[in-house]
């Protein structure tokens, strides 16, 4: 069973990378760009048939390692 995990920086956390990317894009002429925020993505495959168990496991991985809960939020999608 495969999942896609998207990790984003919390709203009030400074995103220097996103800011630089945004400036660069605007300088490149992409004037319609309103905002861009950078995050991480994980594609995770677990050996598990039950979706809710699988999801629980992925959630655990996020909480225990993948996500720094102080500064990051995350969402899990089944794919």
């Amino acid at each position, binding site marked *: 069973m495969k999942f896609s995990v998207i990790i984003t920086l919390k709203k009030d*956390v*400074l995103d*220097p*990378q996103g800011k*630089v990317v945004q400036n660069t894009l605007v300088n490149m002429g992409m004037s319609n760009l309103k905002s861009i925020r950078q995050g991480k993505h994980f594609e995770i495959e677990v050996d598990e048939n039950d979706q809710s168990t699988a999801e629980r496991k992925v959630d655990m991985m996020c909480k*225990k*390692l*993948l996500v*720094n809960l*102080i*500064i990051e939020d995350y969402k899990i999608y089944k794919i």
Partner: protein
Amino acid sequence: MKSSVIVFPGSNCDRDIAIALEKMQFKNQMVWHKETKLPKTDLIVVPGGFSYGDYLRSGAIAGKSFIIDEVIKAANLGCLVLGICNGFQILTETGLLKGTLLKNKNLKFINKDVNLKVMNNYTRFTNKYKKEKILKINIAHNEGNFFTDANHIEELKKENLIAFKYCDEKGNINEDSNPNGSLDNIAGIFNTNKNILGMMPHPERMVDELISNKDGVNLFSSLFN
């Protein structure tokens, strides 16, 4: 005094700190991350480098190693813990220190000598420094941009838990003297009990006049007081 340097795969300032500690008369031992017990020790040092290649987030993976549980236990019992650079990042990942270290504001690795102001010299780590002494210490990191929540900042200020701030030669603390974007120019912090110090700059690189200066010496000698 006895010191223990924790070595993770990818640590690369482990030899440097070991040499500095020995020079400062510590009886030092290296502790491999797979070990499950800490030797008897007065000081634990989590050294700089790129533990686990800085993959995922710097310090995140080392923060889950076997030995780290022992470090946490010892720290909670009052053992002195010093985290330098990647070591600081690891300590924040374990929760021993609050806050986190984001990418440098210019998104580049920065290596240079910077000025630091000693903000609190009433601690086990800093008592040999004069108050507000300005030091010149080397930094070398990608993620040294200290960030934390408003409550923690408040606590850091109220409890005098800020160890060092980035400043200029004259001691001015401002945006120009902030190399990496750290909140309030913070370069190093203590935990509430002040037995744990995490700092981005490398004091172990500043104990030999021939290669730099001796501004790091007092940090190590303070520990003997």
